[in-house]
């Protein structure tokens, strides 16, 4: 029986490799037959910024890695609307299409999950 697994990504990329290593885990989750979704929240929204170039700091480009999520079967990509507003970001700033959720919608997303991790 497939489990509903939510990856809650709320760390900025590049300042540490946490974001990158969490995305690797989400990609692997995608190839298992689970119902995987991702919620970008807080500084995690910066993972989605367009025009990233990880090579400038000697590593991979996080935005590009996120682009592989749909190929791995992870198509439910959500982002926290209030976080975006606080950071001054809109969908035009992002390198991937996401579904914006307000707090009520995020609560119901959380309440549908079996597992939530970061």
């Amino acid at each position, binding site marked *: 029986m497939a489990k509903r697994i939510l990856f*809650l990504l*709320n760390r900025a990329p590049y300042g540490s490799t946490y974001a990158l290593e969490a995305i690797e885990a989400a990609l692997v989750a995608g190839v298992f037959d689970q119902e995987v979704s991702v919620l970008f*929240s*807080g500084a995690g929204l910066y993972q989605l910024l367009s025009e990233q170039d990880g090579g400038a700091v000697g590593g991979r480009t996080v935005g590009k890695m996120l682009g592989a999520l749909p190929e791995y079967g992870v198509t439910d990509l959500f982002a926290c609307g*209030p976080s975006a507003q606080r950071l001054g970001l809109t969908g035009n700033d992002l390198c991937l299409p996401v579904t914006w959720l307000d*707090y009520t919608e*995020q*609560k119901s997303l*959380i*309440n549908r*999950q*079996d*597992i*939530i*991790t*970061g």
Partner: protein
Amino acid sequence: MATLHLVNKPAAWEDCHPLLDAEDAVLLIEDGTYLALQALSGAALYALEPDVRARGLSQRIRSNIQPASFDDFVRLVERCERVVTWSA
């Protein structure tokens, strides 16, 4: 209880708080226990007792926050359907 929210840093409260349901539980752990000095609300509130004691907070935590042992922590995990961890 629906969801157990673990909060391990004061700054994480800002992300956690708007997503609390009334039937949820919050367990403050590690540096998150400093939040027990503040007026918090939104769910049933607990603070991990050894972390509270280490930091000198035992006599200082707000009365609406219940001390929890590690056994209580396990029981909260049993009773809730899922656990979500908030960090800075």
